[in-house]
């Protein structure tokens, strides 16, 4: 299959990665190649196979619904590029 620049621009927008014209061109070519190679899976008869999301064949463990961690605001914010008054700072979202 071939993927055009508009498709790449759309998925780059979904993935929140800014791409320039040259990159759109490059990724359109590369992704077309990779997706073309992946197309071979269309020919596989999966019958009634269940989709696998985990190889661990057991239920996720449960525990009592109690607080086990917390009170580490400084640790949580320690690596943030910009903080104020104990919060992360981002550009204004609501006018």
């Amino acid at each position, binding site marked *: 299959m071939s*993927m055009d620049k508009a*498709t*790449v621009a759309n*998925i*780059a927008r*979904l*993935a*929140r*990665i*800014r*791409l320039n014209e040259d*990159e759109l061109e490059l*990724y359109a070519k*590369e*992704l077309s*190649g*990779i*997706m073309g*190679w*992946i197309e*071979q*899976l*269309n020919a*596989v008869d*999966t019958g009634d*196979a*269940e*989709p*696998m*999301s*985990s*190889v*661990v064949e*057991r239920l*996720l*463990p449960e*525990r009592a619904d109690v607080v086990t961690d917390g009170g*580490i605001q400084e*640790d*949580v914010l*320690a*690596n*943030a*590029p*910009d903080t104020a008054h104990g919060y*992360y700072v*981002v*550009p204004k*979202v609501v006018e």
Partner: protein
Amino acid sequence: MTDLTGLTMAAALDGLAKKDFSSAELTAAYVTAMEKARPLNAYITETPDQALAMAKASDARRAKGESRAMDGLPLGIKDLYCTKGVQTTAGSHILGGFTPTYESTVTQKLWDAGAVMLGKLNLDEFAMGSANITSYYGTVESPWRKAGDNRPLVPGGSSGGSAAAVAAHAAIAATGTDTGGSIRQPASFTGIVGLKPTYGRCSRWGIVAFASSLDQAGPMTRSVTDAAIMMGVMAGYDAKDSTSVDIAVPDYRAALDGSVKGLRVGIPKEYRVDGMPAEIERQWQQGIAWLKEAGMEPVEVSLPHTKHALPTYYIIAPAEASSNLARYDGVRYGLRVEGDSLDKLYENTRAAGFGAEVKRRVLIGTYVLSAGYYDAYYLKAQKIRTLIADDFKKAYQQCDVILTPTSPSAAFALGEKMDDPVAMYMQDVFTVPANLAGIPGLSVPSGLSSDGLPLGLQVLGKAFDEETVLKVGRVIEKAAAFSTKPSFLAGE
């Protein structure tokens, strides 16, 4: 004194126990080796002061008769494991300046067992790659050279820094992670031992996530015995990782002494891929002969969905990666490139912070998960994954382990296979199925290519049967008696 950096973990533990040398002396030798190995670019961060302090504490414990399973052994840590107070990069610009305020479960277990941290090892960006050429911190060079050819070679990837450091004697052993072959393929390229444990055997907590249903932590060492010792420390249930499995950790080292007589070794006919070099086939046949001599019975098995494993992997892994990597947004940690809106801030940060291979995979992952394509790609891949896992379950009704080559080639030169992503992805053709099925796999050095480069054989086992995998690996190790060292050794 003998060259301390030439010792395996097992030999160093003996020497430490007999007071032939102290951990301070052993660690000092490795700190020097680590500095000498800088041309390989294997370490991103060196922590010599921390190493020497940990060695001193180890010697104090030993003096009191309180030594532990890996006391005093200087390790390199793949820079995907979060280490408290020590910069952790995942090989990516986007984590620039990130210093974890917590320690990964597996590294904590290693420190609790007395091990010493030399530093953090280079890797492909977010562990995405098979040559260690995608790191923001530069490519890693293998300590090996082809006979009569001085061009630099790749160490394999993604745990390329780990492999190069262990092979060049710049760490006694290292941690790796394996999502599609990232422990086993570099181990094979550099003539060392690498074990990808069963999914769920080691905690993934505190390890930067790539593809959460495939990632596993494991040891990279200079012998099978060392892998068994280190595995015993790394393995175990962790309440902080809901996919880690709560079953007892066996004594892997003791398991090495058991007999392999009567065990059946499966030879999957589908692993004879087109264009596989004759010398890889010869290594494989040699491996079968060695196991036969040890009393094992070869049986042909069929893994009919093998040829679909790689394209299936290249749907599932990027899909999970695109989701996992959504957290790098310039707000909570790492790089931030400002923009005049929140969306622009995200887009600018991720454009500047991710390298080309990571962008490629995030884009593929976003595409296969997007509306209208989810069923055709992701759901289909999940179904084929079930078929691949079922192939192994059926095969293991006929055999106890499976033997294959680790990689379809020996190490290649820096600059080769770099124009075509699919050609690079083919590196993982023999290793990816074990990740999809969640089973353990061990790469053991088995011989040299015609160019004088290491080749490895892979032993695959049943889920949670690392004991048999290691035991069979030890038979290959003994028979192969692989003793060639790379042309560059940092420790001498």
